[in-house]
């Protein structure tokens, strides 16, 4: 009865976004925020377990379940977990700094992307520039009474006579507009052809006049956290513009597993698909604007991403990726029309996704191997992409093995009491004085600290270990003459910054549990490498080059990463950082069908090791749960202060 009465509608106001939305009574607060386009972090995807979605109820009432993530003090001050709250009355909700997404860092990375040059020692070589899509100018003779063959036959005849192209198929969409285009262009038209890796050639578009000068493509790396894109000039093989944005799916969970879980909810798969397409469309607009081009001149899309990201993009149910025996729907997806997915490009534009190897070894890794040309050289290379899902490849031109290990979210700041993404205010650099245990910190953006990011964790643990503040099992020495090591609510902790020195108004601490989480994450990565190396009957010393990919990887301090036992103890000059290997591979694939075929060859060449089924891995993992490692001989360069 009261269904349409204004009293039952609730107005929720979000600060500092200054956004209002009308909600139903009892609506979930986090979902309400999402519906209003207001981002609130949620590492766990709204399960109530991570505590990253804390908000402050400034006015009004919510019905909220109090979990251990909210302290009594916080609760009394109006802090609630958004995902655990239902709206009851009109609300004013303040989203605190810690729960907000910071975009500033993306701008910084953007600059780095433009400046960044991949070291040429680690790039694919010897490929010819031959993009999958080509534009061909055709000058046709107009039909006459004596030559009254059909428009299509005339087009095909032209392609054969002028370019020697036979057995070519023509998309029906081309045929539909053919008559008009041919006449609009006065029998001078530009034909767009698409070469599949098979190889098979088809005409995908025809335009009046000569449009060959405007021939562009887009390359994207769809990461679980961020999407990075480049606009490419297919005539000159150049990057015209690049940009990045958070993957819109991030509001539905921070890792692939929580995304898969969300996709299983009613309408979840569609929502996730729409979220990432919206991100792509946003970047598409930005890239074309930056480059001064028009969307209609984009002829091709190449996308690399992990298997789950690709499946969500294509709208394929990722459910079985998560269930043993971990089978994806496709490894090599056929080119699809981008517009059919909702991507805002012309109907004729096809999207090519780099092939994947297995459920947890995706096209992003294949792209990295392709882009770095590991498969072309004899050099035995270890390729590591460090992240929530760490991927490892070892191989050269003769063989390639790969494994994926679940390191957990620690490297992205997840599962860490005061962890955060590598955005402004994140503690990144840290050294600790061995005499008085005082820290020297640097933060991203040089601001007051707000939390700790993944590369910061590595530096902090290495610093604590070197200073003799923790023992090799990651436990604090509690008898040291410093007030920074104290017993907190989660056991012993180290105070990195006192409340007045921070942005958040409370001490930034690093707890024994955090150390444990990092040790587990690094142990999974290292044990993965070790298991893979051992499975080849090889030793660490057989590795001739280590390529570290990923944005996170580029910020790692090699010495500290070796000190905590994340990276193998090899001479520093063997390590090469290549930044985003996935985007690199996607770009090169867009430039060359040779490389597109190579990509499929690389994917087929890789043998995937399922570490979760490997007993050796478990043993190596326990051995790696020590700083730097139980087998100290493997880290002879690391000197630990004892006593």
């Amino acid at each position, binding site marked *: 009865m009261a269904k349409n009465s204004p009293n039952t509608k609730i107005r929720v106001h979000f600060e500092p976004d200054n956004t209002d939305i009308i909600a139903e009574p009892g609506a979930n607060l986090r979902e309400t925020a999402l519906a209003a386009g207001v981002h609130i972090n949620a590492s766990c995807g709204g399960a109530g377990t991570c505590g990253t979605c804390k908000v402050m109820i400034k006015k009004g009432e919510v019905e909220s379940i109090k979990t251990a993530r909210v302290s009594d003090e916080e609760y009394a001050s109006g802090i609630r977990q958004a995902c655990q709250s239902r709206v009851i009355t009109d609300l004013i909700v303040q989203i605190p700094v810690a729960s907000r997404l910071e975009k500033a860092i993306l701008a910084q990375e953007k600059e780095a992307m433009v400046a960044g040059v991949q070291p040429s020692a680690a790039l694919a070589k010897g490929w010819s520039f031959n993009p999958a899509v080509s534009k061909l100018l055709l000058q046709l003779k107009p039909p006459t009474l004596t030559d009254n063959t059909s428009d299509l036959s005339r087009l095909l005849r032209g392609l054969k006579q002028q370019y020697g192209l036979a057995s070519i198929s023509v998309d029906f969409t081309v045929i539909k507009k053919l008559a008009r285009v041919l006449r609009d262009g006065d029998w001078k038209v530009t034909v767009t052809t698409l070469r599949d890796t098979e190889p098979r050639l088809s005409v995908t578009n025809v335009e009046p006049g000569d449009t060959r000068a405007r021939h562009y493509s887009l390359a994207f790396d769809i990461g679980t956290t961020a999407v990075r894109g480049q606009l490419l000039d297919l005539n000159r093989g150049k990057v015209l513009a690049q940009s990045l944005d958070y993957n819109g799916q991030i509001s539905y969970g921070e890792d692939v597993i929580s995304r898969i879980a969300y996709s299983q909810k009613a309408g979840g798969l569609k929502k996730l698909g729409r979220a990432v397409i919206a991100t792509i469309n946003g970047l598409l607009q930005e890239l074309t604007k930056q480059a001064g081009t028009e969307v209609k001149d984009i002829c091709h899309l190449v996308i690399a991403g992990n298997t789950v990201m690709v499946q969500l993009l294509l709208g394929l149910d990722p459910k079985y990726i998560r269930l043993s025996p971990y089978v994806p729907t496709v490894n090599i997806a056929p080119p699809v029309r981008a517009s059919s997915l909702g991507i805002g490009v012309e109907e004729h534009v096809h999207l090519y996704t780099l092939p994947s190897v297995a459920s947890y070894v995706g096209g992003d890794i294949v792209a990295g191997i392709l882009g770095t040309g590991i498969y072309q050289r004899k050099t035995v290379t270890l390729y590591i992409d460090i992240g929530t899902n760490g991927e490892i490849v070892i191989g050269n031109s003769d063989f390639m093995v790969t494994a994926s290990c679940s390191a957990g979210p620690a490297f992205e700041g997840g599962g860490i009491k005061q962890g955060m993404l590598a955005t402004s205010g994140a503690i990144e650099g840290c050294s600790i004085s061995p005499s008085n245990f005082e820290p020297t910190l640097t933060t991203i953006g040089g601001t007051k600290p707000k939390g700790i990011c993944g590369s910061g964790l590595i530096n902090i643990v290495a610093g604590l270990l070197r200073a003799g503040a923790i023992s*090799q*099992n990651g436990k604090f020495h509690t008898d040291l003459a410093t007030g920074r090591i104290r017993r907190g609510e989660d056991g012993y902790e180290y105070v990195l910054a006192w409340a007045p020195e921070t942005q958040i108004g409370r001490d930034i601490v690093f707890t024994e549990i955090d150390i444990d989480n990092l040790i587990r994450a690094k142990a999974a990565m290292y044990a993965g490498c070790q298991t893979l190396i051992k499975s080849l009957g090889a030793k660490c010393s057989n590795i001739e080059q280590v390529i570290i990919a990923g944005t996170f990887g580029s910020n790692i301090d090699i010495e500290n990463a070796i000190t905590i036992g994340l990276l193998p103890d090899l001479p520093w000059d063997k390590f090469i950082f290549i930044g985003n290997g996935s985007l690199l591979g996607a770009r090169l694939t867009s430039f060359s069908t040779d490389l597109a075929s190579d990509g499929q060859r690389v994917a087929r060449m890789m043998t995937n090791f399922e570490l979760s089924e490997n007993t050796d891995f478990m*043993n190596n993992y326990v051995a790696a749960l*020590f700083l730097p490692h139980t*087998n100290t001989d493997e880290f002879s360069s690391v000197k*630990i202060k004892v*006593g």
Partner: protein
Amino acid sequence: MAFELPKLSYSGQIREIALGKGDKAVTVGGEMSYPFHLFEGEMPHLPKIAMEVYDTPPEGWAEAALEPFKGVTDDPVAWARKCIDDYGAEMICLQLESTDPNGLDRNAPEAAEIAKKVADAISVPLIIWGTANHDKDTEVLRKVCELCQGKNLIIGPVEEGDYKKIAAAAIGYRHTVAASTPIDINLAKQLNILLGNLGIADERLLIDPTVSGIGYGIEYCYSVMERIRVAALTQQDEKLQLPIICNIAKETWKTKEVKMPTEEDPKLGDAKKRGILMEAMSAMVLLLAGADILVMRHPEAIGLVREMIAELVAS
């Protein structure tokens, strides 16, 4: 051509560790080959058996386990003397069961006093074993170390959760430490490294890998102990080149199969024989996996194991 036995050559040796004081002191370890592979290398010190003594009259024990100690179970000193005088014990292990906070919760000074009395009354090496409660063991074992200064006791269990304070006391008052970890070669090595960092000399360290009896996962213990020996003897893993102590009596005598009286399930045979054999056979399995010290209970089970050792080393 005569048959030649294929032989393994070893690159490592188990450290020799001296336990106790005076003419009844013993040395364990020193192996240069896998257990009883005397055709490959020497075993200079045969495995030793320590007999259990409890600091409080046992409750709920099988009749067979109580019988040999009638009249002395309420006096740890008399119990220890009986083990040595009547049953020829080379070592004693005093189980400080009464200190268990979930049981009698006897305080540290009293418990240490008992340990001291036993230590004073015997001349064979003495093992003092706590209840694996980190807080309580820290209190009790530190007190024991202090009160029994200079006796070179073996103090255990020292675990990752309480090693710092107990080991510090052991260093200070010159005792040997049994480093106890839950059935894992890596964890065992990690704790040894941590103890080493703290200043415990390798000559004062034993490995307690944590064991169980037959029917309760002994295969797994066997495999872990075997791997410890492989790493120690063939992979120069110094932090694992240490003698192994196995607290097997408690593990076998607490099982249902050992406690069940004959009448309850005649198919299982005579209860006394059953218990003795369970203990003896479990002990044998551990010996073959590399045990250097066995903590045992029943004199007859001990007799069987001694016989077996003698036969294994007979030339």
